[in-house]
């Protein structure tokens, strides 16, 4: 349907119609501004958004230039998938990872600007002669081997460019595998030590003691975490109590004479209680 509209709009497809010229002179500066903004913006997210604008206007250029399939692929793949991937990575890396203003190489920016200007002048000079010398043929709807943009592209891809298409599939699979390998790659610092390696390290003497630390309350008179463990020779193991408990200030409650419950019994049950204990 787009092709029908285009064919009606431009009877001679090689000639730029007035509407296309208007689109070009509106969207061309917008795309240039987007590109400049991407290069000049300090914040990387602003750069990404400026690039999205440029890609959108390029997609409209494709559609205007009788390549509607490529235009929609541009919108879906570039602005939809690739730029979102860029934004995801920007958010993972850190949004404020802006450029440093310090020039590492002296005069690098000026040199780069001059080189870019030289490149632009060379390219424009190379193309400029074709402004008058070249007459465009245009993709006529009844042109050679052309019956609709998508149909024509499909016919081309699956006949003339079939080998390249197959290579593309291999490339995509390789890229997906490479991204997985790179994404899940963990350096040596991140590898966990297994049980066996831990035991061997203990026996090799890399730890302070071979055995694990004794738990509190083992072989002691109480099973509270505040009671230290008693070693087989009867001495107290101080490392059995967590350093946090040791460091916690304990309010001394023994010194405060409170209401004594034993006073109610008249002291006789004290002896029996101690005997039975």
């Amino acid at each position, binding site marked *: 349907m787009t092709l029908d509209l285009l064919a009606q709009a431009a009877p001679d497809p090689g000639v730029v119609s007035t509407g296309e010229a208007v689109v070009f002179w509106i969207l061309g500066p917008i*795309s240039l501004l987007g590109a400049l903004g991407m290069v000049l913006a300090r914040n990387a997210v602003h750069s990404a958004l400026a690039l999205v604008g440029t890609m959108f206007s390029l997609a409209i250029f494709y559609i205007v230039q009788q390549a509607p399939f490529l235009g929609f692929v541009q919108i879906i793949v570039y602005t939809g998938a690739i730029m979102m991937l860029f934004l995801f990575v920007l958010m993972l890396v850190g949004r404020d990872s802006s450029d440093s203003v310090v020039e590492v190489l002296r005069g690098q920016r000026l040199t780069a600007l001059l080189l870019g200007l030289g490149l632009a002048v060379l390219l424009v000079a190379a193309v400029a002669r074709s402004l008058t010398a070249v007459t465009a043929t245009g993709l006529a709807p009844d042109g050679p081997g052309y019956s609709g943009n998508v149909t024509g592209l499909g016919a081309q891809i699956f006949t003339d460019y079939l080998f390249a298409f197959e290579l593309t599939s291999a490339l995509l699979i390789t890229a997906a595998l490479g991204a997985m390998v790179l994404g899940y790659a963990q350096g040596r610092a991140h590898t966990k030590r297994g049980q066996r390696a831990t035991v061997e390290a203990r026996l090799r003497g890399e730890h302070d003691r071979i055995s694990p630390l004794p738990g509190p309350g083992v072989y002691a008179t109480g099973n509270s975490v505040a009671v230290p463990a008693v070693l087989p020779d009867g001495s107290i193991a101080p490392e059995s109590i967590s350093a946090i408990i040791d460091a916690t200030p304990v309010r001394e409650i023994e010194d405060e004479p409170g209401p004594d419950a034993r006073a109610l019994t008249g002291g006789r049950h004290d002896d029996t209680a101690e005997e039975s204990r």
Partner: protein
Amino acid sequence: MTPTYYLLLSALLFSIGAVGVLVRRNAIVVFMCIELMLNAVNLSLVTFARIHGELDGQVMAFFVMVVAAAEVVVGLAIIMSIFRTRRTASVDDANLLKY
């Protein structure tokens, strides 16, 4: 106006992308500049297809898009793995061909 104006626009966009690659230090922005250069080349390919009246230019632009997608995936994975160990995304700080 002829379709050749699109070629001029494409040349300017390509130059801006090249300057961005040379100037910027953030690896992700450098990557975006490379994407801009690929897009400029795509625009010129589509324009060539129109000028010549053949679809080959559009097919080439399609393949460029596919290769660009694969390149972006691998490149961003490399940037992520470098960032994970070096805590930086600047091209100045990556001086080893490993992470």
